[in-house]
């Protein structure tokens, strides 16, 4: 299996504080790699750092995407190379319609000079199909981006984008939080579908609930900015039963 993403001894400082204290992780194509950990253990920090968020200062270590270091690239460049992050809490952007946003993003990728008018009408059909697939009503397109979206709508919108933009590496930061059971099941289906397409998926969550519907290939547990344990699905189930105590003691 081919390595998609390699995180090497990653130490990251945010707001003057060291949050990640040497994280190693390898993610392969066609694989679901779960990252678990208690609140505040650094899961989102890891996701943001991989995506290239400003203010997430890499003090040591590297991030390789398809064998090439991306740590000095801006976020948009990483995105265009095929990295995607589904946000734990996508910010609301008042005034910008969901459709306007999607069109801008699609056009940018197609190299259209004008980001506002849809060049390829087939894309609209695709958007409609995907809305259906993730369980969102079409009317959401005319709403302002993430403004007043329910927790579930936000997660569905993030999944829709993961499907629409066709990235190679997909980081999903708690894609199941705020979802009802049907929602979780749906998200799980989509994750399986993405895996079947050969995508590399980094699945961040602190509950193993999602794993009842989609089994991870690998599990990495973060505690206090460090890898506390690695293993297979059984590790996730053990944590589900006994809590993070298990790995803390190791």
């Amino acid at each position, binding site marked *: 299996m081919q390595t998609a993403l390699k995180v090497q001894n990653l130490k990251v400082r945010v707001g003057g504080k060291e949050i990640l204290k040497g994280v190693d992780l390898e993610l392969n194509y066609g694989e679901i790699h779960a990252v678990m950990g208690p609140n505040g253990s650094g899961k989102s920090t890891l996701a*943001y750092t991989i*995506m*290239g*968020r*400003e*203010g997430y200062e890499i003090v040591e270590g590297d991030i390789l995407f398809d064998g090439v270091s991306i740590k000095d690239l*801006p*976020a*948009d460049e*990483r*995105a*265009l190379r095929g990295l*995607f*992050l589904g*946000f734990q809490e*996508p*910010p609301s*952007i*008042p*005034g*910008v*319609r969901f459709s*306007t*946003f999607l069109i*801008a*993003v699609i056009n*940018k*990728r197609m190299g259209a000079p*004008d*980001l*506002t*008018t849809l060049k390829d009408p087939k894309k609209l059909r695709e958007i409609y199909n995907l809305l259906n697939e993730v369980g969102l009503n079409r009317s959401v397109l005319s709403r*302002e*981006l993430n403004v007043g979206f329910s927790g579930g709508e936000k997660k569905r919108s993030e999944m829709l*984008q993961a499907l629409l*933009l066709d990235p190679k590496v997909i980081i999903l930061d708690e894609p199941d939080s705020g979802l009802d059971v049907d929602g979780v099941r749906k998200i799980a289906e989509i994750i399986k579908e993405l895996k079947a397409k050969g995508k590399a998926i980094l699945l961040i969550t602190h509950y193993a609930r999602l794993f009842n519907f989609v089994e991870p290939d690998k599990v990495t547990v973060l505690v206090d900015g460090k890898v506390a344990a690695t293993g297979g699905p059984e590790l996730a189930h053990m944590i589900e039963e006994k809590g993070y105590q298990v790995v803390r003691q190791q």
Partner: protein
Amino acid sequence: MNKGAIKLREELLKGMDAVDMLGLTSKPYKIEVELRGKITRDVVEEISRIKKEPDWMRRLRLRSLELFEKLPMPKWVPGIEEIDLEELAYYVKPEATIAKNWDDLPKEIREYYEKLGIPEAEARFLAGLYAVMDSETVYGRVKDALKEKGIVIMSMDEAVQKDLPILKEYFMRIFPPSDHKFAALHGALWSGGVFMYVPKGVKIPEPIEGFFLIGKAYEGQFEHTLIIADEGSYVNFIEGCSAPRFAGYSFHDGMVELYAHKNAVIKFTTVQNWSRNVINYNNKRAIAESGARVDWFEGSIGSKITVTYPSTILKGEGAVSRSMVVSLSKGPVIKDTGSKMIHLAPRTRSRIVNKTISAGGGVNIYRGLIKIIRGAKYSQADVECDSLIFDDKSKAHTYPHNQVDEPTAQVTHEATTGRLSEPQLFYLQSRGLGEDEAKSLIVLGFLSDILVELPFEYLNVLNRVIQLEFKELGSVG
């Protein structure tokens, strides 16, 4: 959103650093007359003599001068301390007579307008165009069809010279020189501008444009535009302002007076794109009679300092007015804008939408007034002020003022202040948009509800100005 709006947003968004990239450098051109120094009675008389004015105008000027000398310097106006009136040439006549053909203009002057795309716009969608350079009108042409309908349109100076009887009734009666010191100064020194009278029931679908250019440093421009729309008529006027970048500063103290008679409609659009050397005070006031409508649209892009408050006096029952302002302050720039709506009659309605964007240390100030007198029953005023702030250095202040003496009247006020936030930017960038594109999208979103309401011509003109300037733009904020 219409095509124009989309295009505009792109241009708007790409950058806000106005005239820097115009590609217009201040080039020498021939000047016929230039007056500067202390502003005295003699000087004012001299201007009146050069312009061969009737006596009433000479007296109006002198009365204005007296008021100017008497009235106190308004302390609260930003930038006042930067103006040394004695340093300015207050009357500059370029060596050119009013041309009806672009080819008849001196090459140096024609080039300015060509770079701004004015002749092209004229050919594409204008019913008429007047171009003022410094203190005098250098170009004027209207479609023959307008004259056939009995529309009177000419340079303000020509109208005064001809002593059109209607002038006396209106000239500085809507905006009297006694209003404030700079209105008085305008009255004393005014030169250039457009006069227009639209007869009863005549509708002019295509816009007429007045374009005002300041060619060099240390001069004052005091153009005067007066539009009288008689009963049931319709007119759409666009005012464009620009200046090349020069060393030093220049001062603009223009005036617009509008009179919309019963059931008339006046749309007045300003695309203000002075260079960063221009201190811009603009005096704009309209009177709307019963059933009339006055719409102000203002795109305040350029200048170092701008102080302007489009105002409408809703004088007749059921009169309606809107004022929509988009103001950009990027860098060491102050925009003191706002609108005033004075409701004097029952069932009058007004709406103000003011959107400001502050970036790179820019300051936007909204100063608004809603006044509804007792007896203006069931009148309604709605005010919306939205500010978008790009960074910690930039500021937006809102000073709304309501004076409502009629119990059945309704006033609503909404104000929002948004900050361009890092999470928003990161989110958009994580989807592949560059920093500028991300900011663009956010600004577009911010302006979206006003863009859809703007007249197409506005977008077109604004677009034209911005296109030139933002060709090689850098990043915003």
